[in-house]
């Protein structure tokens, strides 16, 4: 069953009792009374499968802090398995908190994958991995590519299966920040986004709804084919230049969530990924040109 089939009122009730949401290989049981979580899930997760029982990887809760805080500058907390790993946040950050919390659950626990900090997209059976330093334009580029027909695997977490070295999809919403929100609205006026959360530790954030096709295919792993390091530069002509594979390896290892923890297995999985990939730096200023270059790359 898909989430939208519940209807809004039943979704509200399920969230009070525990909604079991499937995102890629993970099932999360989410409890929340926060209206922001209800509206965010309703708006962005409609195509995702839900379940009525069975094993859940993560038991999470996003709810308002009780006491005086309930009426004066209300706050929410993110809970995992009864604990509260983070400080409370303003109530209107509730949906963003759920998204960040779920990322944290995966990156901190799913050690049966090598987990890299990178976006992953796919077209024609070829996956493009986009590592990127903060501010490099990774999420903006990811959103533009997804809105141009690329399949979304993830905007934050590249999961590499230890058995076959393939990339495992999550297909969760793309986290856009600050100026990139309006850039993507201008790029694709029909793009569906969640509500804005202002003054977060990342500035203003909004989440982009993943395409239905990406969600429908989230059990379909992808073959690593390209590692592209994007860099947005004002007025730059789009330029794809070779990037050292050894450097790509080291970058992936340094920015992985669990490379050190996996030891030799992490080395082997990372090396196998780099072996399979052509590596590039990509400088760009216009999203339409970037989409054309990436479409050529995977054609």
């Amino acid at each position, binding site marked *: 069953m898909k989430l939208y089939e519940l209807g809004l009122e039943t979704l509200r009730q399920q969230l009070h009792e525990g909604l079991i949401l499937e995102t890629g290989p993970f099932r999360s049981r989410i409890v929340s009374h926060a209206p922001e979580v209800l509206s965010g899930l309703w708006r962005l997760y409609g195509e995702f499968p839900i379940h009525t029982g069975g094993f859940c990887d993560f038991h999470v809760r996003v709810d308002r802090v009780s006491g005086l805080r309930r009426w004066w500058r209300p706050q929410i907390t993110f809970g995992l398995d009864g604990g509260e790993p983070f400080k409370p946040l303003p109530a209107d950050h509730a949906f963003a908190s759920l998204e960040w919390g779920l990322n944290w659950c995966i990156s901190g626990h799913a050690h049966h994958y090598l987990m890299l900090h990178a976006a992953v997209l796919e077209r024609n059976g070829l996956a493009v991995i986009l590592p990127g330093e903060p501010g490099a334009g990774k999420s903006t580029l990811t959103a533009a590519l997804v809105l141009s027909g690329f399949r979304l695997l993830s905007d934050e977490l590249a999961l590499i299966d230890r058995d076959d070295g393939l990339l495992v999809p999550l297909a969760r919403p793309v986290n856009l920040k600050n100026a990139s929100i309006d850039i993507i609205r201008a790029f694709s006026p029909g793009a569906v986004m969640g509500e804005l959360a202002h003054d977060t530790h990342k500035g203003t954030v909004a989440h982009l709804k993943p395409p239905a096709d990406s969600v429908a295919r989230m059990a379909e792993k992808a073959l690593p084919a390209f590692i592209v390091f994007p860099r947005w530069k004002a007025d730059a002509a789009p330029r794809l230049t070779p990037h050292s594979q050894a450097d790509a390896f080291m970058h992936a290892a340094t920015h992985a969530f669990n490379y050190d923890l996996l030891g030799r297995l992490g*080395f082997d999985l990372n090396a196998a990924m780099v072996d399979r990939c052509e590596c590039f730096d990509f400088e760009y200023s216009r999203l339409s040109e970037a989409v054309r270059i990436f479409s050529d790359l995977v054609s």
Partner: protein
Amino acid sequence: MSEIDPGWRIAPQASLALRFWDGECVLYHGASGDTHRLPEEIGRLLEQLAGGMAEIPQLVEAINLHSEDVQRALLELARLGIVEPVQ
């Protein structure tokens, strides 16, 4: 050199893995859990030593580096616990 320095080998517990790409290599050092990015020649030197103990002249011939460079590399690799002189 060989009288003072009879030979070098991979440290017994080093547990190494090497991968080469375009003139560079990455080395996994299992004993420390560290990963190093190295010039290809140093990777080739480690490959030579993985085949068995070697003296510096043999390594110089095998990997086409100056003796001083080989010696410097061996000392640095020894400092990291990756290779060791044979006593």
